[in-house]
């Protein structure tokens, strides 16, 4: 039953020029482990909707039959520019939206009333490659925001007041944080960004109540630890990258956390000989201790900036006449992986399909290890072209899975490449240290291609491709949402559109032109018996940079207006 918000206290308190209307204690429902493991359909309690990471809601009031009547019911400006990449998180009528620059807005999800706002003051001289936020996490009566400056902030969900702060790392070394935390049994799990700055990635768990560190697991083993033999050159592990910059998924039954790991640092594998575990891998971690229980490395000695940052979705699928507990992951490398997970954290390879053209892997062997075409592997002083380019077959935007259709929906890009070579560079903490300067990326596209961005779909049981949506004049940078109403929602194109597709056929059923380009994941929720769909529109960071390049290459309009707005839609009466 949806809790009503009619009792919201709007006792406004003027704080630093901002109006704050604290929620009355009775108007906020604490978030529990049980609720996170079994989220109510009317809520969107975490970034991807559930621990399985499906980006799916069973709500079906808005469906393929009535979505044409979807209209905006309220909107709010975030007041900031740059790439908005956080979904509206909703807990019984209270919405929390994180924005770039480490800010959080709390809103009445039905009316749009602003309840409170948190603006983090970033340190003098601070900078981050990606100044975005990919969302907050909820637990108990708190809201958890990973600050860009590598400080985890716990806010009182009712007031926005800071409950505690915990330093995660030293931002001056190049560490920063953009992902949404993952809550696991009273702990707040975060991972760090900074792969382009030569950090050593890690995932750390903090006590949700006190902010004290509970465990910390590096993505790159120190000498003597399992996997350290894959770092053959002394000391390269210290600056080896492996950022953990996206949120993990979780199997509560097995108490296993699945977390994605980025590429190696610097980018050129010949500067760090060996397979370089656990770069470009999925890690399986014990939820209590952070101990690495298993892993799967998608490709070795990474040299293409193809992070494996997205944790795989926990999807069970057909195999050999039965059903296996699986992991499904469309990787930045352009391959879609079917993996099997066991209760001890083991991950085994089943199959992989190329979902966009790719010229690097000649084949993938029976253990899931690709055979690399060295002509397409850039190295130090060795130029190579590779396709897809460094932004990959897909970048971080979330794929979605619908248990109703049995299909996975992938926001993908193709017909683009990069061509470059590496240099040995001196590292300055906090500065770009990849071995190649951005002006030397030599990004290219097939100028005769009929499309660049797309949604690509597969039947997870048969592996057969399904419908496609092709975008002839845009890349695709939008996370997708599937619903019980047989719909797929997503933005991601440079024309500022937010769209709904029939999940079975791919037919575009509805669209709405927003203020800016949409990179953020949509979410859906219900308040007082009314289903809403919400999304933040606000273009920036990599899509905006890439759009500049495409303006030169294809004549596309370079200026996609920036500035964030949260849109909330419902079916008109």
């Amino acid at each position, binding site marked *: 039953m949806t809790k009503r918000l009619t009792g919201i206290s709007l006792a406004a308190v003027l704080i630093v020029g901002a109006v704050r209307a604290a929620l009355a204690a009775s108007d906020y429902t604490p978030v529990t482990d049980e609720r996170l493991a079994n989220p109510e359909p009317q809520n969107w309690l975490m970034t991807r909707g559930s621990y399985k990471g499906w980006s799916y809601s069973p709500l079906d009031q808005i469906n393929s039959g009535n979505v044409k009547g979807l209209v905006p019911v309220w909107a709010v400006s975030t007041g900031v520019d740059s790439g908005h990449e956080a979904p509206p998180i909703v807990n019984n009528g209270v919405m929390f939206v994180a924005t*770039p*620059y480490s800010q959080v807005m709390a809103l009445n999800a039905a009316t749009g009333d602003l309840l409170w706002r948190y603006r983090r003051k970033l340190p*003098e*001289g*601070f900078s*981050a*490659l990606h100044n975005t936020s990919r969302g907050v996490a909820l637990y108990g009566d708190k809201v958890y925001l990973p600050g860009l400056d590598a400080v985890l902030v716990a806010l009182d969900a009712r007031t926005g007041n800071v409950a505690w702060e915990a330093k995660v790392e030293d931002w001056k070394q190049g560490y920063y944080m953009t992902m949404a935390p993952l809550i696991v049994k009273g702990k707040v799990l975060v991972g760090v960004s900074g792969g382009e700055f030569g950090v050593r990635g890690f995932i750390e768990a903090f006590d949700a109540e006190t902010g004290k560190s509970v465990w910390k697991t590096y993505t790159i083993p120190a000498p003597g630890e399992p996997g350290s033999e894959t770092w053959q050159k002394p000391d390269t592990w210290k600056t080896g990258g492996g950022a953990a910059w996206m949120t993990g998924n979780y199997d509560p039954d097995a108490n296993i956390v699945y977390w994605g790991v980025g590429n190696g640092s610097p980018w050129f594998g010949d500067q760090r000989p060996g397979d370089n575990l656990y770069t470009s891998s999925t890690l399986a971690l014990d939820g209590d201790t952070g101990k690495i229980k298993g892993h799967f490395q998608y490709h070795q000695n990474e040299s293409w900036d193809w992070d494996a940052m997205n944790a795989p979705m926990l999807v069970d699928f057909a195999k050999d006449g039965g059903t296996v507990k699986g992991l499904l992951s469309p990787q930045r490398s352009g391959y879609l992986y079917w993996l099997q997970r066991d209760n001890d954290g083991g991950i085994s390879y089943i199959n992989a399909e190329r979902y966009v053209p790719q010229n690097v892997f000649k084949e993938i062997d029976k253990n899931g290890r690709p055979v690399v075409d060295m002509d397409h592997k850039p190295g130090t002083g060795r130029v190579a072209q590779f396709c897809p380019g460094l932004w990959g077959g897909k970048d971080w935007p979330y794929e979605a899975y619908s248990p109703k259709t049995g299909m996975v929906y992938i926001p993908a890009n193709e017909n683009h490449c990069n061509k470059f070579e590496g240099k040995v560079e001196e590292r300055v903490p906090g500065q*770009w240290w990849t071995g190649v300067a951005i*002006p030397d990326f030599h990004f290219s596209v097939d100028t005769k291609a009929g499309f660049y961005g797309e949604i690509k779909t597969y039947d997870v049981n048969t592996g057969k491709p399904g419908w496609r949506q092709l975008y002839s004049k845009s890349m695709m940078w939008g996370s997708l949402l599937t619903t019980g109403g047989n719909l797929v929602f997503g933005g991601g194109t440079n024309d500022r559109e937010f769209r709904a597709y029939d999940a079975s056929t791919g037919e575009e059923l509805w669209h709405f032109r927003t203020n800016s380009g949409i990179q953020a994941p949509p979410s859906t929720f219900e308040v007082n018996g009314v289903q809403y769909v919400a999304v933040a529109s606000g273009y920036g960071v990599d899509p905006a940079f890439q759009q*500049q390049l495409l303006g030169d290459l294809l004549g596309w309009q370079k200026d996609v207006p920036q500035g964030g707005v949260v849109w909330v839609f419902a079916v008109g009466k």
Partner: protein
Amino acid sequence: MAQCSRPCLRGVGRRGVLATGLVVAPALLRPAFADDPAALPPQPGDRFAHLTGPRKGQVVADGDLPLGGPQVQAYPIDIKSGLVRDQSRLNLVILARFDPATLSAETRARAADGVVAYSGVCTHQGCAVNMWVTSKSALYCSCHGSTYDPRDGAAVIAGPAPRSLPSLALATADEAPFVTGGFSGHVGPTQQ
């Protein structure tokens, strides 16, 4: 160690050793505060200490700067005490050298023998402007591609930066540039 025929710092660390061999007291290795001389913005008379490269920590001389670019990263240094003002990221400076005839009149007026100095902190999001676009002979930000013309007051010629990089007025002595005034404008971005 080779003898210095021009102003230099021998074996200098981040916080300074003088050419005379005077070691700056370790007590200086403390957290930066607003009144910390190592966090103060460039002061008149300051020279520049290389941030990277074979002359890391040594004073930047005109001859260290390749004619026509690219830029060199540095922090201001108080030549008398050997103190490097590297305790604020906002003090990062980029230096480059050009034929004075190729500089705009305003830029030439602030340059010294063709050497120009700008804040190395991008006015967009505060990242280091430490890359170089050979085809445009321009300064390039390492985060989001803002591109600045070093011959024309670091005016923005591409990318998202809202304004030019602040410059430092320079003079030269002993074939090395030094600061004659403060930054020409606000350094770095303005947080939203």
